[in-house]
């Protein structure tokens, strides 16, 4: 039995820390974990992803297309980009605030937010929308979006982890001065029924 999670976003959004927190939380529960990260050229404002595989019977650190139980997307277009990895009955937690690349303003393909959101609503059976702007406003920082999304992911019930598991991992891995902010971020998002 294992759970496969794809985290995706834009370089600099904090996907790597989120995957480390998930891995640490799972390890504390005594579960085996493998992860794969995007490192290098792709970090410079590019699309980034992390694969996290929790549980027994896992060989590769990478997840095959159509085999992810959960996608945690830090931004809508990246959710669509990684959607081929999702199982038919899978869950997507997505931050709704788009990050528009310079290329979309200088002759590259445009960012069609409405089409992207409609597509996600059509295709994903279990879609959890997280209003990143509201979260940043309410929490007073946009730097803890990763933990807000983890909180929503835990509440979606796909992970065999509790918010306490993630809270413990945050205590261990996040610097002291960000502890309070991240604790509030973890408690922030409520899962849609």
């Amino acid at each position, binding site marked *: 039995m294992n759970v496969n999670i794809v985290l995706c976003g*834009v*370089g600099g959004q904090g996907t790597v820390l989120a995957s*480390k927190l998930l*891995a*640490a939380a799972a*390890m504390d529960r005594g579960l*085996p*974990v*493998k*992860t*794969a*990260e995007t*490192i*290098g*050229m*792709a*970090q*410079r*404002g*590019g*699309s980034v992803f992390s694969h996290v595989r929790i549980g027994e019977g*896992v*060989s*590769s*650190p*990478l*997840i*095959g*297309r*159509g*085999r992810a139980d959960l996608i945690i997307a830090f931004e809508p*277009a990246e959710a*669509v*980009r990684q*959607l*081929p990895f999702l199982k038919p009955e899978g869950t997507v937690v997505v931050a709704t605030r788009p990050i*528009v*690349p*310079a*290329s*979309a*303003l*200088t*002759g*590259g*393909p*445009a*960012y*069609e937010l409405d*089409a*992207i959101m*409609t*597509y996600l609503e059509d295709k994903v059976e279990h879609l959890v929308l997280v209003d990143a702007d509201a979260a940043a406003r309410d929490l007073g920082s*946009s730097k803890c979006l990763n933990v807000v999304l983890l909180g929503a992911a835990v509440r979606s019930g796909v992970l065999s982890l509790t918010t306490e598991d993630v809270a413990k991992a945050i205590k261990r891995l996040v610097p002291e001065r960000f502890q309070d902010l991240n604790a509030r971020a973890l408690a922030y998002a409520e899962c849609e029924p």
Partner: protein
Amino acid sequence: MHTEFLMGNEAIALGALAAGVNVVAGYPGTPSTEVLETVAKRKEGNVYVEWSVNEKAAMEVAAGAAYAGARALVTCKQVGLNVASDPLMSLEYLGVKGGMVVLVADDPGPISSQTEQDTRTFAQFSKVPCLDPSGVQEAYEMVQEAFELSERIGSPVFLRPTTRVDHGYEAIEVAEQDEWLVRQPEGFVKDSSRWVIFPRLSVVNHAKIEARNASLSDEFSASPRNFVLPGAGECARKGIATHGISYTYVSDNLDEACLPRVLRVGTPFPFPERLAVEFLQGLDEVLCVEELDPVIERALIAVCGRHGLTTKIRGKLTGDVQPSGENTVESVGEAIARFLGKEVPQPQPSDAPQLPVRPPVLCAGCPHRASFYAVKKAMGKRKTIYCGDIGCYTLGNAQPLDMVDTCLCMGAGINIAQGVFHVEPDTACFAFVGDSTFFASGITGVVNAFYNQANLTVVILDNSTTAMTGHQPHPGTGRTMMGEVVQKVSIEAILRAIGLTTVETVNPLDHELAVETVRRVADEPGVKAIIFKSPCVVLARPQATSKVDASACIGCQRCIRELGCPALALRDGKAVIDETQCSGCTLCEQVCPVGAISGGERL
């Protein structure tokens, strides 16, 4: 022993420390960089670690240490091995005394490299034994075995993980620090019949190497790093031969009902021939699932020929596995399904909406953007060539800057520009090179161009770090990996010592001065240099941000269209600045024709 959640490269570093490594030298390059960084972070006692000026220097430092009986580790990426190949090819003929491991990270895809070369092939070429791990735990164990093997046979040994092993994380069992081997090197013992290479010695040692590798092939056939998993069911007369990370993709795609026999090769050179013969017994067909070169496939074809076996060997050479690019769980799954005569899932045509593209870009506030833009403005419509090099600044090729016409390999830009000059003397030839790349392999290029009477402008993009690979120190930074503060090597003094009379150092973020300097310098005869000096914005972390006065902005979009800065966007027909990205470099303030942007603070 205890459990740690480690990146493959961190595991390799800890394995080397556990094996009592004494000296570690390397040059940064994705996906290898974290190995040396982790050694520096976790080392205890007398371990010496350095970022060398390039991979050739690293190989030679390690060789000298191993001559003196130390255990030595070299770290580099696959193209770095090319730079180090001269010393390595000869070193194999002389051998080593202390164990010497050459860690080469290969990069299928390639994800962040110029080539898809395969160090397993380089192992055959150089005759250096090679270990090829499939995961993080195995990489940790293999580096220790590689040191033992190296010391036992007196030869350097390759460890060649690929990107997915280097950058994969696993919770693995590692030794406690007080269990690490502590080795006291014997020291260098003079013996010119051993350490001085001459043709006479080479021919003798060549024969010994061939004999040793034949016997290693036999030994490796019994090594647990090479193993055969039995098949079952209707697929039992078929086999799959694989290696590295691809082995895990194979495992994730097999099911009990129809299980082919599997050969996992962990020592691609010398190839475990005796085990391969056992594996092939009774098999009709074998599919070789490999990344990069068809090394196992060619070896099995040779084994069949030598042993008169009729097993059909399939793989890259027969078009059953993709010839290039990275394998994935699904690409391997599809190849296996076709091989076993199962239904191959057809990819559904995507009905997804158009998505924006996110090519990697220079960071907001990156001084390289200002440097490229200054040269672009200064040269206008003149006939030019802009030769680029390896580093963040290769990204200057992107629109709208479009300022990199060529990029080949580390340090090549200077002499590419020279070559173009000899064919087109009327072209204004520019070579852009970063500070770390200049030290790595740019200096000889400038000497060559100067000596051979070229006419070109060398533009040094000096951001005082090795930015692309994560900000490693280099000779110009005045810091070493041992934590010492040392005298900085001056790029300007080097250029003047070569004989260049025009060497101008300018802050590229002073746009007007930068443009004026380029215009003046480019028209001087001979080889001349401009050093654009401004710190990497990621390290400098300036706190100011620029803002657009919406009432003053005329919506001309000049800032957006000329600079391509990721912090600049358009909202309601006016330029806006994303303050979470802006570093206040002021370049857009200087470009705005109506002075609508202000608030930045130039470094």
